[in-house]
């Protein structure tokens, strides 16, 4: 004695957002029913567990049937099988492509390959995101990566148009793609304090200023690959630390500007040369892919950590970097103003974002 078949199909496809979330989160039907019961739908609506089970099954089936379409969201809008109001479609897509910060933090900068996919059960255990959900998120990253890889034009815009995502989510995906492409190291212990949003912000900065797209917006991969010429030019900045006069001159300009404005002045003065060497060396090494990968770890080791141990406040940092950048313009023998601005603009905002506990 059992219900052998049980379906409910609406002309307008009925989807419960709560159940959708449970499905996305990788709950099995039975677990989802449990969660829903605890959530109190039953009391609210005097339904029985059977009713809830039947409803959950129906919805899961619907989602599974929709999933194929969600893989290329543009299809969702002009498919004929499900009649879904546009605002619902937007919700479906946005939620489907949403990800857990804990999960993304684990795969950020890793190659989106089969190998990484095999590690998903470890990640699942570590982040307590269900394996099913991990797979979905990982596949989403990979899918977006594959699609935009072959497209011309601005990265964020491509993602937004192809996957019909909100601007915010499209930017996040751009960051993920950018990190995966350049394989930035984000997993080291020293970087653990950084959130995905910190990295996403930095990625945005890098994409806007350091990629080919910053100068030419009609080439492939323009927003994914760093501008090679620019990286070459960065070597020229070395003069700031190799030329003793320039270094001293730079230091005195910065110190003059800073004196009396901060409690950390002494530390700043004492560390100036170290810090300056650190930043300029990072710039000079970026032609090596290996060093590009270590960009964030370098920033932390060479700059953020020393400052933090000297107990600079965030506004100290702001003050210091502003004057450090601007003073270079006054150096008469320093000819690489444009490259310097392009470099320091990004460094500045990245460090501001990354300088926290």
């Amino acid at each position, binding site marked *: *004695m*059992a*219900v*052998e*078949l*049980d*379906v*409910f*199909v*609406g*002309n*307008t*496809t*009925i989807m419960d957002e709560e159940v959708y979330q449970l499905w996305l989160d990788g709950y099995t039907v039975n677990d989802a029913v449990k969660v829903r019961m605890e959530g109190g739908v039953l009391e609210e*609506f*005097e*339904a*029985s567990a*059977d*009713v*809830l089970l*039947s*409803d959950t*099954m*129906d919805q899961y*089936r*619907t989602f*599974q*049937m929709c999933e194929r379409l969600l893989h290329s969201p*543009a*299809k969702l*809008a*002009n*498919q*004929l*099988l*499900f*009649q879904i*109001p*546009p*605002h619902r*479609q*937007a919700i479906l897509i946005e939620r489907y492509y949403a990800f857990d910060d804990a999960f993304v933090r684990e795969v950020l900068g890793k190659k989106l390959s089969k190998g990484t996919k095999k590690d998903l059960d470890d990640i699942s255990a570590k982040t307590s995101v269900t394996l099913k959900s991990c797979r979905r998120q990982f596949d989403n990253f990979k899918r977006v990566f594959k699609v935009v890889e072959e497209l011309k034009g601005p990265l964020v815009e491509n993602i937004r*148009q192809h996957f*019909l995502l909100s601007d915010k989510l499209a930017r996040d995906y751009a960051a993920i793609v950018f990190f995966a492409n350049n394989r930035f190291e984000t997993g080291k212990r020293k970087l653990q304090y950084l959130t995905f949003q910190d990295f996403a912000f930095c990625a945005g900065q890098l994409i806007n200023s350091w990629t080919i797209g910053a100068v030419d917006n009609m080439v492939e991969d323009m927003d994914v690959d760093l501008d090679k010429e620019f990286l070459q030019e960065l070597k020229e900045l070395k003069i700031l630390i190799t030329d003793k006069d320039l270094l001293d001159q730079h230091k005195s300009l910065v110190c003059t500007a800073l004196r009396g404005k901060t409690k950390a002045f002494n530390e700043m003065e004492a560390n100036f040369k170290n810090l300056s060497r650190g930043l300029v060396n990072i710039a000079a090494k970026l032609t090596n892919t290996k060093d590009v990968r270590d960009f964030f770890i370098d920033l932390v080791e060479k700059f953020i950590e020393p400052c933090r141990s000297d107990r600079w406040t965030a506004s100290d940092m702001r003050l210091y970097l502003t004057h450090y950048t601007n003073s270079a313009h006054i150096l008469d023998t320093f000819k690489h103003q444009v490259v310097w601005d392009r470099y320091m603009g990004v460094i500045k905002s990245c460090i501001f974002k990354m300088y926290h506990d």
Partner: protein
Amino acid sequence: MPGKLKAKIVAGRHLPVMDRASDLTDAFVEVKFGNTTFKTDVCPKSLNPQWNSEWFKFEVDDEDLQDEPLQITVLDHDTYSANDAIGKVYIDIDPLLCSEAASVISGWFPIYDTIHGIRGEINVLVKVELFNDLNRFRQSSCGVKFFCTTSIPRCYRAAMVHGFVEELVVNEDPEYQWIDRIRTPRASNEARQRLISLMSGELQRKIGLKVLEMGGNAVVGYLQCFDLEGESGLVVRAIGTACTLDKLSSGSAPNTNTHVHPNTAPASNACNSPSKDGKESPLAHGCRSTHNSPVHSACSSQRLSQNFSVSVPTLIFTGMGSGGSAGKEAGPLKTLLRQQTQTALEQREFPFFTLTSFPPGFLVHVGGVVSARSVKLLDRIHNPDEPETRDAWWEEIRQEIKSHAKALGCHAVVGYSESTSICEEVCILSASGTAAILNPRYMREGCLDIGSTDHRFEEPSPPSCGFCHIPYDELNMPFPAQLTYCYHCRRQKVPDVLFTTIDMPPEAAVTGKGCLIQARLCRLKKKAQGEVNATAISNLLPFMEYELHTQLMNKLKLRSMNALFGLHIQISVGENMLLGLASATGVYLTALPAPGGIQIAGKTPGDLSNEHHILTIQKRINDTITKNKELYQINPPELTEEVVGSPIPEPRQRSRLFRSHSESSDELSELDLSHGKKDAFVLEIDDTDAVEDIHSLLTDAPPPTGFYSCNTEIMPGIYNWTTGVQMFTSVRVFRLSNANLTNQGLNKIFTDLCENLLKSFYFKLRSMIPCCLCHLNFTVAVPEEELIQVAVTAVAMTFDKDQTQEKPADKPVTKGCSETEEQLQFPLELCADSSSITTQTSSKISGVPESTNVSPRAASVDYGSFADRCSTWLELLRLKAHTIRRGSVKTISSLERSSPLPEGRSRSLRSNRSFGGSSVPVVKMTPLSFLPGTRIIKYLGIINMFFIRETTSLREEGGVSGFLHSFIAEVFAMVRAHVAALGGNAVVSYSMKECVLMENPNKNQAQCLINVSGDAVICVIETDQESMPSTINVVQTCSSGADGAT
């Protein structure tokens, strides 16, 4: 050679990958009509091919145009091996053959494959050029409009209703031909789909011919069904109501208040606008208007009944609905009435109407439900060209229905429908309808020209109760019914309970709200073969009908209601059981007496524990009744209106009902006497069965707060629909364990199955609260020995809660009544009479004895004078204006509410745009004949589609549920695509006629057949600007029309 069909293949999209190597497809298209085939070029390596073909032209007979579908096949070109089929699209071009429907078919169609389902879409353009206005060559019937809608379609008016049309065609089922053993499942499915498409085209054409012969131009309430008789063949049959419809000019747009009173508006127009082309229809058939005063006769009939008004021994209604071939309520003749109103109808073979709602004034009286069933053994159809056997079967049943109606004193049957249930070689044919007396005005030539004159003779009884007045002669009522004077007008006799298969007339006065009432029943039967089996089944049928009827009656009483509308009784046969499901919408008709309660009686008085038990049950029942009254807001108007002082006696009244068939009616009347003429309704507990029954009676859970449900078009008592609409189909199959099941165990399972389904709906649709599930249509089947299948299609519609509460308050039924009285200027004498009746009633009895006090002679005199007076134009006009004003008030109030709607619309449009390529038009679907808040401006043609889906990878598709879920979704998608291609944005009167699922999980296989139909329409949202002026228009038209007629 009267037509040229042109088709152009534009493009495809989302095609499946057919070449694994390249992950692409080399698609081309074959376009076939009749025996002619064209091909497009191959569009290599693309999943979104652009063919932009030339126009393929087919020069064909219009007969073929009607019969054949345009067949489009998408294939993958393969250089070395045979081309692989991707899928097909069948396009019914019938809508293009009618000038008033669609002019072009253009849009994206899902490419459908019976094994893989939908595989991409194709964009097609189709046009038809008809060479001349044919209609001389009688093989075709191009131009006859078909409507599934069972009322006069909005934006048309009925110039004339000609009557019943039926036809059936038979063929061998390809699935059972020898060739099926050697062809692929796909080929066999496609052969079947194509054959059925051809057969329904042919059927429609033949019905069209009959309509033309009768002088009509349309079929309304077109109901087409398939009987899959297996080995014996395939039957496609259809019934409908032939009409002459006139399109209303859009200017006068009468149905502004559609969602309020669906039928009032068009009809009022119909009555009044000067009519015109009744002429062309040479009403050869039976509508000779030799009797000039048909309605006059109606009056006299009333006088008659008034004369003999008396308390008839209190009996019940057992007759109704009982008996396979047994007569229903037999009734005496009322000769006068007969002779005068009926002749027009009697001249035709079957005075049947498939309509379920009617223009005001059309329906004069309703007698009750008539039904007939017969059990047949199927034999192979030897000659498809001579479907005589099946014809004869139906003929037989229809004759029976006709005689039942006659027995009820009625000359017509409305809300008529036919159905079959087949298991192996046994077939149950069923027909049912509502016996009624119709106003013959609509059936006579040129009737509408003189329509106004007819009013002179029109029924003096107010429309809000007239239809309840008994049509039969109470003196010779052989079936037991208790008559009282109408509680509304106090002038005519009404039965204590009224069952009908039609929708509630919109003008009917109701108290409170209605609700869905279902009776469910399982009966085991022995497995048997051939005649033994057929005999066993036909022996069971009367008992089942009786039980179902009893259940309905009990449940009705339990809800304190007194009438059922939309009654549909389905009896389904399986190998080892019969299932019976009766659904209806219960209401409290103000005109009918309040139902008595239910009293429990023990068989063995004296047994104390038993007594106690009975008391408990009695208390539960009483509590339930009280609760239900509250729930459905049933406060009989007498309470407020007429009772001076003394409390109304109705809850104390009891009527008596016997559970078991064996009780004799002698006993019955005896007991009645002992109850002093009150209608005692006693349930006897004499065995465990009875206890079970009572329990099941009480287990029906009421819908949760905020929900209402009904199986009629709209819910009596709810007027202010908002625009939220959600049509759905749900199917459940229940597997019985093979343990020894008893009838009771089965009943419980079946009841739970239905109740749980309802609960699921309420839960799923909870976000729409407050809302009403309308047109809940349950279909039961026994697909295999241990399976019970229930399929439901319904629509959930939102309404405005606050308004509901206000509405009855500001326009209570009673008020309507008093206003009417004013309007009609009742003769003083009558008023005095009725008030005396009132006061006497209040003195505590059921009104029946009361009426005896009124001198019958006096009453009849009053009547005469009343009729005269009523016929004066002034009153008529006022009455009209009154009705219309009422309508417009409602419209306006609902419009205020609907104002946020256009906003919502535009918002969705905007977001739509933001989605760039999104171009899928929204198509709404509803089983109702209208969409709330909108006005239908054009009917584009009938949608009638048949699909087969089969799988050999059932598990991979998510089991049977996954398989059926996607199939139903695909069917919806294909219906929507066809409607959109016709230029429509909605399907009304949608129904799923057939859903046959066969599964074999062991072989990982399943097959399903679905047949759906409906009317494609264009509807527009009603806005203040639009409807306000047009409402005024209607009023003006009315008065001017009437003036002119005078």
